[in-house]
């Protein structure tokens, strides 16, 4: 980053050559561009994700390679820091090399210039005056002063005076400020970075914890005591609870940083705009500290952190803090019995459920009191609607496989009918597929469950099949027992298949078991029989009569049949219906201590001042050589600038005319 050109040093020692190389412009520009390219990596590859995700993404081989290269946390990788360090060293060397010259440039008026060289300058003008040289020199100095130039007279030879003038010497400060600023910012940043941690880890003083432990279980080697170091960590504190630690995420693990005070969370609030979008996130905090006479109560919100004892406490996120949920488990198939069972549980609680022969682990993962989502019934996706509370959970089978569910507390309306909504997915990467369970007139699932129980009632199904078979075969002239048995069996099987796998299973059966030639004729007949059976079973329920059946009832039947048809893909033997909840939130605080912050800010201020000085305060020099010739006084005006040559052209043109007019004979 040299301003002056380095002249040919060929026979210097190695160290001198190294010094020159490190401070060289070529290296500096190379480093700037290398740093730019290296920085791209961390923006393209998402940083500090769970390592398992990287393995899935890259496969075990490349995962290992990228890990060795430090690509998952590229900005603290050794090689990246090395580039930064080299840039800082290069800049420092450059500043050290040019500091004396810059100071000199900044202050010194060049007084030892020759008349010849002034004449040879790119900006040069000449005129005569009849006044004595002293008067002309004084006048010129006055004019220079008016233009904002600092100047000095030097008596040259016998009868000549040189006025050396300068303006904008501060431009050189611009160079110094900008370059020193880079060093200052990087050094300040180093204090606040995780470099000290890396060093401690490398020396073996600390160990990154990767297990999911409770705070008490975390070993001492993964704990950082209160001290002067910088850190940036997060902690989630449920309402009514307190914490005196924060977690510092490091690669695929974390460290525990102790705080010199305790933060208690009284309340966490989300406010909403009229359209349902969140308007503010706020936490009421109480700081407990022996140094305080009374606990400090403060409310923080996004953009309004609390600064306490050098620690900045920010509102960063929020989550559930273990809400208490009361729910009914409605059995969806015979494995789980016939009556709803009440359950009380908490978010983040895992419990074993015995449903029939099967034990499943119920893992509550989240609860949300509002779900303001685009309204699917409106065309414009910006129209939001509150779908009310929902909760998410996982059901893990004994083999460890888990499905994730999302259940809404209140029925959702679609086409004028109401449904309980439950989403299911096999992995977090998939979107939820929703099961719509039709709600009966009492607002419950009773009718739905009654009907699905009827489908599994073999006796009833057999009776319905029998009567239907008889009606169908009544038109036949003679009884055919084989046909009767076969039809009866077919009808019963259709229902069984339907209960097992919905319409899909029935279609599969048709595709695989019917002779090719008859399939096209028989398929509609089979589906028609199935529908008829389903309807007849429905009509066997109390209060449903085929003569007086209402349209609503028929729609309910259709919805019920649709829902049962998809149950095989739902995977859960029960539908968990939330009946009551106590919402407990947890606020996510980010706590940072940045001892280098003020250093960095100082560097930033230097950088801004420096950049503007550098670009917008050109250093301009003017010289006037005033010499007595035989009859007259001769004046040579010359000038130079280090920036904005175009403006200086204009400036010099104007000034030479102006000065000649003021101090010379008008015979130019």
């Amino acid at each position, binding site marked *: 980053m*040299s301003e002056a050109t380095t002249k040919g040093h060929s026979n210097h020692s190695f160290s001198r050559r190294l010094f020159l190389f490190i401070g060289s412009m070529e290296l500096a*520009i190379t480093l700037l561009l290398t740093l*730019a390219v290296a920085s791209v990596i961390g923006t393209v590859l998402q940083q500090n994700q769970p390592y398992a995700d990287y393995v899935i993404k890259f496969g075990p081989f490349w995962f290992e390679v990228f890990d060795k290269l430090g690509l998952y946390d590229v900005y603290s990788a050794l090689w990246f820091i090395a580039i930064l360090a080299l840039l800082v060293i290069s800049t420092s060397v450059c500043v050290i090399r040019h500091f004396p010259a810059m100071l000199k440039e900044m202050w010194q008026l060049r007084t030892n210039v020759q008349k010849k060289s002034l004449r040879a300058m790119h900006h040069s003008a000449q005129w005569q005056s009849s006044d004595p040289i002293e008067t002309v020199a004084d006048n010129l100095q006055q004019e220079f002063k008016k*233009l904002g130039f600092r100047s000095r007279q030097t008596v040259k030879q016998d009868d000549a005076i040189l006025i050396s003038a300068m303006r904008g010497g501060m431009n050189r400060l611009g160079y110094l400020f900008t370059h020193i600023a880079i060093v200052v910012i990087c050094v300040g940043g180093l204090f606040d970075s995780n470099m000290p941690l890396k060093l401690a880890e490398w020396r073996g003083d600390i160990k990154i914890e990767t297990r999911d432990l409770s705070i008490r279980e975390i070993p001492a080697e993964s704990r950082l005591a209160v001290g002067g170091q910088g850190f940036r960590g997060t902690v989630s504190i449920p309402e009514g609870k307190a914490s005196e630690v924060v977690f510092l995420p490091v690669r695929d693990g974390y460290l525990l940083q102790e705080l010199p005070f305790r933060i208690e969370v009284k309340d966490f609030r989300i406010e909403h*705009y009229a359209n349902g979008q*969140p308007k503010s996130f706020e936490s009421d905090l109480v700081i407990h500290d022996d140094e305080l006479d009374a606990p400090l109560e403060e409310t923080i919100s*996004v953009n309004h952190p609390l600064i306490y004892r050098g620690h900045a406490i920010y509102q960063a996120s929020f989550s559930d803090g273990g809400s208490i949920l009361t729910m009914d488990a409605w059995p969806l198939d015979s494995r789980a019995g016939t009556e709803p069972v009440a359950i009380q549980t908490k978010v983040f609680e895992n419990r074993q459920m015995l449903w029939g022969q099967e034990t499943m682990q119920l893992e509550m993962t989240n609860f949300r009191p509002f779900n303001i989502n685009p309204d699917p019934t409106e065309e414009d996706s910006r129209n939001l609607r509150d779908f009310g509370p929902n909760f998410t959970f996982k059901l893990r089978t004994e083999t460890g496989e888990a499905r994730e569910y999302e259940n809404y507390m209140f029925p959702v309306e679609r086409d004028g009918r109401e449904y309980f909504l439950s989403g299911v997915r096999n992995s977090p990467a998939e979107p939820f597929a929703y099961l719509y369970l039709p709600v009966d007139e009492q607002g419950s699932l009773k009718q739905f469950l009654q009907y699905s129980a009827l489908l599994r009632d073999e006796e009833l199904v057999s009776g319905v099949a029998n009567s239907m078979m008889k009606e169908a075969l009544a038109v036949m002239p003679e009884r055919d027992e084989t046909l009767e048995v076969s039809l009866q069996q077919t009808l019963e099987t259709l229902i069984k298949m339907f209960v097992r796998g919905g319409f899909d299973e029935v279609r599969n059966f048709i595709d695989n078991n019917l002779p090719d030639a008859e399939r096209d004729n028989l398929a509609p007949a089979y589906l028609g029989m199935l529908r008829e059976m389903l309807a007849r079973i429905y009509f066997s329920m109390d209060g449903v009569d085929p003569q007086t059946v209402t349209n609503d009832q028929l729609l309910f039947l259709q919805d019920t049949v649709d829902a049962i048809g998809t149950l095989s893909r739902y995977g859960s033997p029960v539908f968990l219906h939330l009946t009551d909840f106590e919402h407990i939130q947890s606020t996510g605080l980010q706590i*940072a201590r940045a001892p280098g912050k003020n250093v960095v800010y100082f560097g930033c201020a230097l950088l*801004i001042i420096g950049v503007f000085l550098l670009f917008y305060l050109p250093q301009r020099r003017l010289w006037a050589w005033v010499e007595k010739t035989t009859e007259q006084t001769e004046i040579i005006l010359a000038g130079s600038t280090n920036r904005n040559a175009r403006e200086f052209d204009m400036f010099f043109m*104007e000034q030479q005319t102006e000065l000649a007019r003021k101090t010379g004979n008008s015979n130019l």
Partner: protein
Amino acid sequence: MTTNTEIMTRPAAHTWWWYGLLLLATIGILTIYQDVLDVYEVSILIFTAISMGLVGNHWPGFRAHAVAVAILSLIALQLYGTDLGAAETNGLLKYMLASQSAIMWMSVFFIAATFTYFGGLIFRSDYTEKVGSAFTWIATTFGMTGLMVRWRETHMMGADIGYIPVSNLYEVFILFAVVTALIYLFYERRYQVRSLGGFVLLVISAAVIFQLWYAFERNAHEIQPLVPALQSYWMKIHVPANFIGYGAFAMAAMIGIAYLLVNWRMEKSPNSGMVKAMPPLTMMDDLMYKSIALGFAFFTVATILGALWAAEAWGGYWSWDPKETWALIVWLNYAAWLHMRMTKGWSGAPMAWWAIVGLFVTLFAFLGVNMFLSGLHSYGTL
């Protein structure tokens, strides 16, 4: 001509009314809104008034522009009263001054100006080029008025909704067009050269066309309340500073294209009409440097302001978030460019190419990051 080479130095005597008006406006705003402005906003207001004073000191066009924007905005506010529905019922609002209408006029005039400038260049007509300048001024005035009126409209949407309309991707596209045009107009007057107008207006028109698509296809023009992270006075300085940077970088790249074209024609036929109609290569080279220097200075300020804001909103002044990192990449790129130019003395075609590449890097930092990468800055998603 007096010594006006040093722009932004001493107030010219004949502009006392300009300073008086700014003072009056500042005092007026402070009086009317004293209850709602906090100390930061008051500082920003005063700083804005001073900056406007300095920029307008030697630039009559800017003074006229500012006064026109003020008058048009005040008329719009008067017509609106407290009823947002007036945008549909009042003819003047509906066809001219409601923010959407003003922005449409801006779009029309920017695109017209692009054609006019190129027409003037092709037919070597000074008059046509002057019309191009006039169109650009009109477009800029409509654009700025549109933003001002929209500011009021956000407040009319609901007491808690109001925000400065430089807060989402749609709004900053308008800001980009207006700021780039102002920077161009400044240099157009300074260098007394209009033949670059078409080139610079090309990038502005591209922004305008995108902005129109964004409004018609995605309804991006609808006013939506701000997410909590964006509710801060920092918005009022961080974003404008950034867009002076983006605008200047865009202009440098467009001049780079003009430079390369002229350079190429020059080698083939030095006496061709195009070479004669365009400014000398040295001047374009100088302008390219000037706008990159301007852009760099403001981009530095913007990035630092961003860091200060991040320290307040995200808990740290630097998080290596993709947006931050790309800002650094842009900064490093232009820092290298400036070093090459100022100390190595490189100039001409390679620097022009580099300025064009720089625009793509900037474009990625501005748009690409929001479209392709995820991070803390995920506000302006398409």
